[in-house]
């Protein structure tokens, strides 16, 4: 992970919802680019379907091309609107394109959108698509804090990013098998008792952000933290500390603070 990715995550638009239970959560909003891709894909699907249907109709009405043309024209028109409206209305706010690009249309309150909202936001496309290439809709998205095009504003909907759920992996420092600090249970115990929550969080965070920090900054921070722990909180014997890097020192400390390897268990 690089620094730029972090800044982008921090500035990306979000919608914050407060539930009746007093839980706050944030929904990440989808930007115009991914929505455009999803729309292009959907357009391709609709055109494909309409042409497929068109061939079938043309073949059926080969004796009466005028009626065939009538059916195709009206079907194309109806499918164009109904495709998005019905899929969004009955399929968790997702068309095929939106599902592939991990987008979902939702109500402004974080609830699924209702069928009438789906229809309104899709019928409003005739305005958002003006004057060409969704210029009005695009400008609306860029100027709206909730990234809504006019159809969304009227229908009270918004498009969120819905990436697959993935529980975070276990912390890497918990995987180490042997922790040399365990050889000194008394000092380890002291470390565990004397560390304030703030300091513990600081250590954890420093380790967690290992790969985001520049090499120089990482060295400095780890050195300061390790020196502080060693001098103020848990004076492990010098012959042990000399063999450890600052980083390893912090990893050992973290697994004593957070992890499975507790001094109390080894003292059985």
């Amino acid at each position, binding site marked *: 992970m690089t620094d730029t990715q972090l800044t982008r995550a921090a500035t990306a638009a979000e919608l914050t*919802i407060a539930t009746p239970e007093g*839980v706050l959560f944030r929904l990440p909003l989808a930007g115009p680019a991914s929505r455009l891709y999803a729309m292009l894909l959907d357009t391709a699907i609709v055109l494909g379907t309409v042409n497929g249907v068109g061939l079938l109709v043309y073949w059926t009405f080969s004796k009466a091309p*005028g*009626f065939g043309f*009538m059916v195709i024209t009206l079907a194309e028109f109806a499918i164009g609107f109904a495709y998005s409206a019905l899929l969004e209305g009955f399929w*968790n706010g997702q068309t095929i394109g939106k599902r592939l690009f991990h987008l979902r249309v939702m109500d402004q309150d974080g609830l699924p959108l209702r069928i009438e909202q789906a*229809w309104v936001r899709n019928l*409003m496309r005739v305005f958002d698509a003006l004057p060409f290439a969704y210029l009005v809709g695009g400008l609306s998205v860029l100027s709206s804090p909730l990234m809504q095009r006019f159809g969304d504003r*009227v229908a009270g909907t918004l498009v969120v990013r819905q990436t697959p759920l993935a529980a975070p992996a*276990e912390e890497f420092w918990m995987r180490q098998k042997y922790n040399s600090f365990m050889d000194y249970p008394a000092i380890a115990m002291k470390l565990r008792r004397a560390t304030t929550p703030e300091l513990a969080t600081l250590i954890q965070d420093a380790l967690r952000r290992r790969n985001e920090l520049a090499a120089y900054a990482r060295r400095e921070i780890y050195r300061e933290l390790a020196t502080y722990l060693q001098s103020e909180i848990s004076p492990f014997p010098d012959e042990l500390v000399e063999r450890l890097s600052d980083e390893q020192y912090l990893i050992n400390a973290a697994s004593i603070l957070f992890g499975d390897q507790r001094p109390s268990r080894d003292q059985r």
Partner: protein
Amino acid sequence: MILDLERFQRQARPRWRDLESLLAALESRPDRRLNPAEAEQLQELYAQTAADLNRVTHGALAHELRQYLERLVARVYAELYFAPPVRSEIWKPRRWLRIFTAFPETFRRHARYFALAVLVTLLGCAFGGLAVRYDPASVDVLLPADYLRNPGQRVHEEEQGQGRHLDSAQTEAAFSAQLIRHNIQVALLAAALGVTFGIGTALLLFENGVLLGAVAVHYTRQGFGLFMTAWLLPHGVFEIPSILIAGQAGFYLARLLLRRREDRNVRQSMREWLVLVAGLAIMLVWAGLMEAFFSQHHAPVLPYGFKVAVAAAELVLLTIYLLMIGRRETGTGARSTVPPEYR
């Protein structure tokens, strides 16, 4: 403060996983109903997970974990606090047929926006008509298409049947589809332009009025009044009102957007807007069929008197439909406080 993040995760992970699988089951089939035991389980798991999220938010700097829990809670929240319409409800034909009564009801409830649309169109008509009356040269500017400018030639062509290259039901069918599509698009745009606080809707209606007024005066002055009436009215009696209703929907939307956010009953209003749009779309289907199959036949085939009589009959039926069908509002107030009776 969670000091033992690992133990916390180890303990909570099973319930997150349960919640995830329950959620997946719910999301994959939107019409799925939970049985009481599942519902209870969902509620309980949700409450626990929400509490977990709160602890992580306030007590630990676990960014990914927080994000994961936020997403999980957000999605369960959406499922938990939303009652989708039941499938059997959606597929009831009676529910869909209600559009035919809901449309005139909605039309009457918002009659004042219709009046506004009529007013704007009449202004346009007057402008167009007067312009052509006092400055015949303005026809070149006001009437875009060539064919509208030379009534004599056009009437002659029409009556000879030269206007149509292929005189068959085939061409008429294809023509009707194009008309329906084009008209619905224009009407929909008028209704959607309400989002410009009605300005766009008004401009569109005014322009439409100018065209109507100019054509009417232009043809009448040259002595083709009867031809024009018989040519335009059989479909016009549906087409023009439906554009006016589109204007009504546009102004209604504009009024809604001008209200303060708290005062909007968005859900009900959207439904009304949709009912108006759906109703006018149906009207335009009829108008398109009439225009292609009936209006284009002229004097030798269909006497003008007959065509005008048909148009008059259509107008009477439409008026009766719009004014009489469906539930009567109590009192004469245009505003209704009647709650939506479905859902």
